[in-house]
């Protein structure tokens, strides 16, 4: 009797393991039938009445709000397209996999999307490391991939199937440097960067270079690690150098706390930041301390443009709350993809890729999108000021 329990569990575990492989192998075999030339195989989904897209996002983990917003945006775009009759007479569907914010999970999910689900096109990832992991898998398989919001330059360098609909880190650093020099007219800026994030380091590198090029001076460059709760040592060091503004290109979760502690220490200068600030949570975490600070962003929720107003209304109705820029970029990415599918001569990888590459003056909610020869979007950025519980549009900076 004592032995039956472990035995049963062992058998169950084996069963689970065994089943897994069996259900998988036939699907794999199917792909082999079509041969290595994936474009030929990819015609197969066309015979069905739905076109399947894939998305990988961090629905759980540290940056879950980004992943969820992106998914919401994509879902909204698909719903609209389906309501308008779909693409080429077929309905669209998206299959979403969670990667827990880890690159190996992202690679696994994207491999699954490509080989098991045979998606036509992949949308995904906010974090650049995860997008790179996905791109390395999508490129050799010949499946086009559009990242809504990975700003690191390296992502689209992985190959000609990889696109993005947002601007890149260097541009964002440049935007803030230009804004600080021309609009705020400050000369001395201190930097507080997040050592744990490539995004933050990239932004502060470019900011330093551009701002110094515009005649400004970086008084000091301090670092913290994402998830720290005490920034007083760095802020005290920054305060000593008497800057006129502090550039904090981190994520909203840390920035709120940094702002509070800066004000406690009597550091009253405005904080400057990037699109990592963009979350409803920022107002909650930063309270009154964050008010009056500026950050560069992809889009402004109070833009008067009708297409932006319409998008915000629909998003609010479906998910409650104003969409952040990840939601807007997810929406844009999905719409660029849908438009490309519509234009593509056939539903093969190369045809879809060529169609995406032709995207020009596409009216996205986060700015007009034109893809350049490096498959990056050329588009303006906006600078927003934080007010009580909302942001205010300040200016647009063009590339």
């Amino acid at each position, binding site marked *: 009797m004592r*032995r039956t*329990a*472990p*035995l049963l*569990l*062992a058998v169950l*575990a*084996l069963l*689970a*393991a065994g*089943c*897994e*492989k069996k*259900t*998988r*192998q036939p699907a*794999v075999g199917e*792909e*082999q039938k079509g041969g*290595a030339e994936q474009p030929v195989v990819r015609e197969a989904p066309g015979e069905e009445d*739905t076109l*399947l897209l894939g998305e990988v996002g961090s*629905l*759980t983990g540290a940056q879950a709000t980004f992943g969820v917003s992106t*998914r919401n945006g994509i*879902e909204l775009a*698909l719903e609209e397209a389906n309501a308008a009759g779909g693409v080429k007479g077929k*309905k669209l*569907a*998206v*299959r*979403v*996999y*969670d990667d827990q*914010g*880890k*690159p*190996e999970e992202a*690679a*696994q999910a994207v*491999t*699954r999307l*490509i080989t*098991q689900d045979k998606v036509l096109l992949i949308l995904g990832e906010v974090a*650049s*490391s995860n997008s*790179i*992991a996905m*791109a*390395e*898998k999508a490129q050799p398989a010949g499946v086009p991939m559009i990242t809504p919001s990975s700003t*690191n330059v*390296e992502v689209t360098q992985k190959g000609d199937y990889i696109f993005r609909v947002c601007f890149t880190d260097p541009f964002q650093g440049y935007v803030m440097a230009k804004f600080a020099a021309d609009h705020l007219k400050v000369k001395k800026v201190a930097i507080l960067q997040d*050592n*744990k*994030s*490539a*995004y933050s*380091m990239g932004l502060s590198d470019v900011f330093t270079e551009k701002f110094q090029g515009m005649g400004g001076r970086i008084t000091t460059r301090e670092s913290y*690690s994402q998830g720290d709760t005490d920034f007083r040592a760095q802020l005290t060091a920054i305060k000593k150098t008497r800057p006129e503004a502090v550039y904090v290109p981190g994520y909203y979760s840390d920035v709120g706390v940094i702002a509070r502690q800066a004000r406690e220490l009597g550091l009253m200068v405005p904080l400057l930041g990037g699109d990592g600030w963009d979350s409803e949570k920022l107002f909650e975490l930063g309270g009154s301390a964050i008010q009056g600070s500026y950050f560069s962003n992809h889009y402004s929720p109070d833009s008067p443009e009708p297409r932006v107003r319409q998008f915000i209304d629909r998003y609010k109705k479906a998910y409650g709350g104003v969409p952040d820029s990840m939601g807007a970029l997810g929406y844009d990415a999905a719409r660029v993809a849908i438009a490309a599918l519509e234009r593509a001569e056939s539903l093969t990888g190369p045809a879809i890729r060529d169609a995406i590459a032709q995207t020009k003056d596409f009216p996205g909610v986060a700015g007009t999108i034109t893809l350049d020869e490096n498959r990056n979007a050329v588009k303006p950025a906006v600078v927003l000021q934080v007010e009580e519980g909302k942001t205010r549009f300040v200016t647009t900076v063009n590339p």
Partner: protein
Amino acid sequence: MDDAVVVTPGKVPGIPAPLRGLFPLLVALPVLFGLQWALSDAPFATYLLSVMGVNVILAVSLNIVNGMTGQFSIGHAGFMAVGAYVSGVLSLALKEVAISGLPVVLSDQLFFVAALLTGGVAAAVCGFLVGLPSLRLRGDYLAIVTLGFGEIIRVVVQNTEVFGRALGLSGTPQTSSVAMVGFWVFVVVLVSRRIAGSSHGRSLWAIREDEVAAEAMGVDTTGYKVRAFVVSSFFAGVAGALFAHFVPIINPNSFTFVKSMEIVVMVVLGGLGSTSGAILAAVFLTLLPEGMRSAFTAMSEEGSSLAQQVDQIRMPVYGVLLVVLMLSRPQGLFGTRELWDVLPRWMARRRKGQS
């Protein structure tokens, strides 16, 4: 000596003693190459099997320390990171180099093996440095030191340009294969089983049961503990090195404390001290999330919100399953026994053999 005979599978009549050691290898290699050939066109199965293999190596190697020796190490992901980054950087440096006179594929594989061994040795050296001072002590000190070590490695990587900082190291040649991962799984299992059956292993068991008594019986406790720890870190390093050669980008986020805990969970779930338990638990826990993905996609209609929400609740479900398993079997699946011990048929045979 008697016990050693029981666990050594090489009791084949007519084969000279020195060749018996090679016997498992002769069985393993054709199987691995067959598997490799069968999976050559299945990237997803290959990827999943590789992840599974790496997890098995990690769990089995951690079992040598946590299970057999009874020391509590919770920094295995740190050693994995050492192996991954050292071998990744080495492979990246040797990317454009090939040994003259050899086909490129072969020289790539040779470099890959070299990178694996370097990664393993680097991790073993770290294991020695970490283990030597902390294993002299008793109790929970090793846990704290290994926890700290894991965090230090991560912070070092994040701040070092060569290791790609926070973005991670990408562009490492993807030379890993199912056969190579499988081969190392085979090696780690073989080593673990041989250690368990040897006099060395007996000393480890003695330390696990009662350190004072073991010392009184003349067991050099520190020496044995450090050696077990170094072997364990070596294989963690190899696992990390393999990982770096099939995951397109390695990033500090992959080697967090959570990863260490995942491996501890595998060992505890399988039963502390049971090699086959660790293997089964690693296989089961790697396939479980993917299996749930399959099940949920199959159950829900395409495009329905269930399919979309479900991926988010995979991890909580995983947690609940673990809690249930631990409540129903606190000693793990097999306790300290092995798979063949709990299978009744084998049980009967063993009794007959011993009496």
